[in-house]
């Protein structure tokens, strides 16, 4: 009888409190959104299930939890805390990304930089709200709208915030269709949304081959701390465009990135244990994350409008919103918003160019912030 009572007292049913229930409901919501609404399913599904697994109550000391040394989850989580998974994801992203539209319209790259202003605005806001500098840097990177970059920088600056920062970043990325369109419509007139972009020129293979080499040299010399992200990113792209290592490129953009995404999502979800996640700081991070995302979108759009004051060939200011690096969600929203103003105006390829630039910009910002806050 004693043995039975002891067993029962160690079960999750006995140990659970309201916080576990709240987090499990959050996990279920993520799974619902990924399956029913198809919001970023590749990310929300593993994260959602990870949240459920991470919030099963257990007796501490059994070596089960993600924060307990020598547990299986702890080993898997090492890929997050060391920055390994984000680097691998960037390798795959590079092997997937087609830079030809960006190479054909280089001025769109500046929009990828403009949309990073949300990061620095959020840095100031987080400091003003009482977060420590390294925490503020980790929160600010949410404005880059890049999940792996957010996780990478948070792992380096404020590992105790990985859960809330990652969940905030991916949540807002999934909510792009809700967050971005109102801001885009608010800041642009219908006439501006109708601006047509010129057809992009054909980009030669030599340009595509030179770009990753030049890109990694210029960016990583400027901010060496971005090497773990931009190094694999440009390497993946070189494998893709070289055409001589198709097998490697194919593996990088399929099996390798998929494996990293699975473990990244699952372990980040599992790291949101109720006792470390449900804190006032998490609320502050979600609040600042929303501001970061909105400011990033707005700054991209406004900068495009400023550029139009000086350009002979105007650019559609909606493209500024695609300067956040949420690939391809924000480019898709830009395209759809443009189509609503003019059903024959196709902005997707130009949006993808801004997206690609945003990926480089946010990784660069992560390197810069890491250098500042070392």
């Amino acid at each position, binding site marked *: 009888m004693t043995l039975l009572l002891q067993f029962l007292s160690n079960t999750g049913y006995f140990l659970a409190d309201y916080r576990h229930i709240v987090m499990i409901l959050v996990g279920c919501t993520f799974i619902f959104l990924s399956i029913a609404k198809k919001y970023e399913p590749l990310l929300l599904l593993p994260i959602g299930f990870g949240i459920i697994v991470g919030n099963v109550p257990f007796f501490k000391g059994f070596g089960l939890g993600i924060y307990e040394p020598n547990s299986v989850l702890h080993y898997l989580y090492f890929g997050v805390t060391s920055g390994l998974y984000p680097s691998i994801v960037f390798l795959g992203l590079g092997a997937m990304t087609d830079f030809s539209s*960006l*190479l054909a319209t*280089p*001025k769109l*790259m*500046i929009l*990828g*930089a*403009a949309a*990073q*202003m949300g*990061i*620095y*605005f959020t*840095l*100031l806001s987080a*400091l*003003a*709200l*009482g977060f*420590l*500098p390294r925490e*503020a840097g980790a929160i600010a990177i949410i404005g880059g709208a890049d999940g792996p970059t957010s996780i990478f920088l948070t792992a380096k600056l404020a590992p105790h915030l990985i859960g809330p920062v990652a969940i905030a970043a991916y949540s807002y990325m999934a909510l792009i269709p809700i967050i971005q369109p109102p801001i885009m419509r608010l800041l642009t007139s219908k006439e501006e949304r109708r601006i047509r972009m010129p*057809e992009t020129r054909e*980009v*030669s293979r*030599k*340009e595509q081959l*030179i*770009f990753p080499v*030049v*890109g990694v040299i*210029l*960016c990583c010399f*400027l*901010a060496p701390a971005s090497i773990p992200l931009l190094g694999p990113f440009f390497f993946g792209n070189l494998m893709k465009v070289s055409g001589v290592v198709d097998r490697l490129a194919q593996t990088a953009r399929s099996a390798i990135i998929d494996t990293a995404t699975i473990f990244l999502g699952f372990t980040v979800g599992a790291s949101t244990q109720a006792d470390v996640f449900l804190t006032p700081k998490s609320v502050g991070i979600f609040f600042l994350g929303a501001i970061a995302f909105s400011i990033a979108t707005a700054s991209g759009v406004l900068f495009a409008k400023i550029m139009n004051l000086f350009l002979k060939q105007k650019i559609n200011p909606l493209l500024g919103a695609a300067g956040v690096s949420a690939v391809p969600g924000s480019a898709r929203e830009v395209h759809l918003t443009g189509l609503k103003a003019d059903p*024959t105006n196709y902005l997707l390829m130009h949006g993808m160019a801004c997206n690609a*630039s945003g990926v*480089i*910009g946010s990784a*660069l*910002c992560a390197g*810069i*912030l890491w250098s*500042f*806050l070392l």
Partner: protein
Amino acid sequence: MYGFEAISHYNGWTMAIAGALIVMSGLTILSFVISQLHRVAGLFEKRPEEPPPEDVPETPAKSFGFPLDDLQEAAAQCSLEAAALGEPFEIKALFEVLKNRGWPAPHLTIRTFRERGILVPAEDGLFSWKK
């Protein structure tokens, strides 16, 4: 510590301004460099050998730039070059003909013809020239 005091204390202003300037200048330089890449790539291009006279491809009677200056003349030239397609024809087939003949921006040309009513829809998703 909160508010502006915290921002100043932790060098927030400096970090934000310097960070923004660095990323902006970095991507602007990269943008400038990639805008010149086609020139660099051109240096490595092999100059094409002068083709023998009999290999010179047939060229259109007049070349057109985009936007089209003289729409009617462009349409007449275009319909001549696509005469082999017969009528009605698929837009895709017309696009291929224009692309092979070296027309600049063939899909914009076709779109302009459609918008100006020079290309009119026929049955089954096919198109024909306005008579």
